């Protein structure tokens, strides 16, 4: 476990520079988008004079590095500032919205895992059969289907025609966990198809590779039952693959959530960041970017920690 501890320490030290670089890049990208928020802030019936006043009032006329520096200084003091447009505290916005997105992402990940892993195993152990072909084709379809489209189809079937699930909205998991999961079901299903598809394909090919390895043949030759070979040796060896793929999918799900959240009117961070980026609401975009960077780094670290427990060679090599 010594290796694991060192890995955590080293990653922790990387966190600060990565956060600074990431927020700098995001800030620069938003800054490079033409126009500034002053015209939006001045309103539908603005005058040119008013736009200039607002520019000075909010400091939009300051150089890029001064604006970023001011943001960073405050952020280092745990002050993420307020939305330019609605004056809401950025930290409040994130705290209100992140749980909705996390619920969707984890729910989709779990749905993806409980469908994708068995399907992958089934396909690998029945390699070349019709079942394998059906599963593989389905997985290709799952990767290809855009989840916003699937989202709309699911709403029209399960919310408008049959009225089994709500068409839109979300309930806070802290207020009513059962309702929260109920509301999150359709969007989570829409999000999960990509996870299912990717996991199925990865599990299948990883398992096929392991099952064709020399030591598996040796085990079989020794007379071990095929079931035992599969469960004790095959799956154990693809666990790292599953974890890594799941970790990557977790990160990708945040970007898919941007669209699915808007189809289902889920007040999560996905809809927050797209709305804020379009309006050039610097403080909100920066705040969300910061939180997402931390989340992604934390999940990657977690995946690596688990991997190194499963396979000590990993810890030794990082």
């Amino acid at each position, binding site marked *: 476990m010594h290796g694991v501890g060192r890995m955590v320490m080293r990653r922790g030290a990387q966190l600060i520079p990565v956060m600074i670089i990431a927020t700098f890049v995001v800030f620069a990208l938003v800054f490079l988008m033409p126009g500034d928020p002053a015209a939006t802030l001045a*309103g539908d019936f603005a005058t*040119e004079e*008013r736009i200039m006043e607002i520019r000075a*009032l909010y400091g939009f006329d300051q150089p890029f590095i001064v604006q970023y520096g001011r943001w960073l200084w405050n952020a280092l003091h745990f002050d993420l500032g307020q*939305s330019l447009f*609605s004056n809401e505290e950025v930290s409040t916005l994130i705290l209100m919205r992140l749980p909705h997105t996390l619920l969707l992402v984890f729910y989709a990940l779990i749905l993806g895992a409980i469908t994708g892993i068995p399907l992958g195993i089934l396909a690998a152990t029945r390699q070349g059969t019709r079942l394998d072909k059906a599963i593989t084709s389905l997985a290709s379809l799952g990767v290809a289907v855009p989840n916003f489209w699937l989202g709309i189809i699911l709403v029209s079937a399960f919310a408008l025609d049959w*009225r089994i699930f709500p068409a839109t909205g979300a309930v806070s998991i802290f207020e009513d966990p059962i309702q929260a999961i109920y509301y999150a079901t359709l969007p989570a299903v829409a999000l999960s198809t990509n996870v299912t598809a990717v996991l199925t394909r990865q599990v299948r090919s990883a398992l096929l590779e392991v099952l064709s390895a020399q030591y598996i043949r040796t085990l079989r030759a020794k007379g071990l039952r095929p079931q035992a070979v599969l469960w004790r040796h095959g799956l154990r060896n693809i666990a790292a693959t599953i974890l890594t793929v799941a970790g990557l999918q977790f990160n990708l799900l945040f970007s898919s959530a941007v669209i699915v959240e808007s189809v*289902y009117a889920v007040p999560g961070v996905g809809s927050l960041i797209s709305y804020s980026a379009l309006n050039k609401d610097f403080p909100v975009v920066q705040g969300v970017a910061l939180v997402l960077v931390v989340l992604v780094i934390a999940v990657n670290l977690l995946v690596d920690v688990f991997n190194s427990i499963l396979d000590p060679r990993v810890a030794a090599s990082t």
Partner: protein
Amino acid sequence: MHRVLYDNTLRPSRRSVLMGAAAVGAGMMMPAGARAQDATPQRGGTLRVSMPYNPASLDPITGRNLPDFNSLYALYDALIGFDDETLELQPMLAKSWEWSDPSTLVLELQEGVTFHDDTPFDADAVVFNLRRGLDYERSNVRSDLSGVNAVEATGPMQVTISLDAPNAALPAILSNRAGCMVSPTAVQAAEGGNIDRAPVGTGPFRFIEWRDNDLIRVERNDSYWQGPELPYLDGIEYRIINELNTAARTVTSGQADLALQLAAQQIMVARRSDNIIATATTSMTYYTAFFNYARGPLADLKVRQAMNYALNRADLQQVLMMGLGEATCSIFPSEFWASGPDAKDYYPHDPERARELLTEAGYPDGVEIATLSWPDQAAMQRTEIIGNQLAQVGIRLNVTPVQPAQAIQVFMIDGQGDMLISPTGGNPDPSLAFDRQFSATALRNAGKIELPGYRELLEATMTTYDFDERQQKLFELELFVAENALHLPQYMSAGMAIQTGKVKDFTFGILAAPRFHTVWLDENA
């Protein structure tokens, strides 16, 4: 000159004729589909509204976009009210107003009104609010009140406003943001006077919570001055749903009672459902293209007129608004009192005439117009169809897509490009509508010039207080803008909403600024 703008001789709108005696009182006119038949309003229930825009602020003077009015008049009363359908001014917090001379407006205030925090409403509160509109650094209504020289409490319930110059639009300005009354106590108690997220007014509903870009909740004001019956609702929950199709689905799936600010597409879809009422009502918003006529090809009147003749507005309206709008060369809907008989069809679709004018202007082989357009799908579609119609007479659009905020900077401030395709409108007063688009000081006037004759006509509309005379002056100004082809108007938009049969007496109004005080829910529907 007694209260000449509060005048009952207004030309009745098509709809008010239709309604006739069915109108029970002010603000009770409603879209035909939503009309309650012989039903007595019921008290109680929470109205669930879906709307696509998060307000910028719930402070009337720091807010900035028209959709903010979905919730503003639920929370605030303005000094002066208006009829939803005609914009005819009506008493509100000011029970009467009078021009003692053309530059002095005297308001007599309603007694017995209190703010939601129990602060009494009086002349001092009005002075506080108008001064705040002029002085607060975050105020977006300073330009509305720019001619105001002094505001004084001339009695406990009387306020006198002195202007630098006559301005017949002032009462209408006081029916909008600048006239919405905020509790002085609340402003004084707030940090930096910022009540963006903690609004306190005198309106029919009091503020409960605002989860940003998610939900706004308001609750019945039990001591509403127009009560005790009103408002009928216990409260309103506004869900903010940015995606229009999603917002419409909340009503079809029964999760909301009413969805506001939709587009033609959702109205057409909703009309296929039996138990959903979809309405598209007259609106003050219009689609046009702003011209920079200070330089380039659009400095030539003949080119501007050629563009206007080249458009087939009926087709545009049919395709882009699915027939729910109104093709027009004016900036007002034809039933609006300031819209004269001659402007609407000033430029019939006449490609021959357009080509002739281009040739006369020295462009026999056509002309290229540097065009800016918003980048969203609907705007690009609009731009392509307009471009296609213009191309048929040899006018080629060289289109650059820009975000709305950037368009303001690039076109209106930096003066780049010849024209910008954009919707606009929604002004409470017709003089303001012209002033904000065509005056040299207007942001939308990219060339910052006025053609000879414009200023005199505009000023006549601002200094004429007799209703009929003012109406004539406005007709003249409207015609001047059309004759000189100062822009490329296309069609009027519509106020588009869908609702369930439960919602009674809701009217979006031509300004899309509903008050909700007489809306009620029919639990038996």
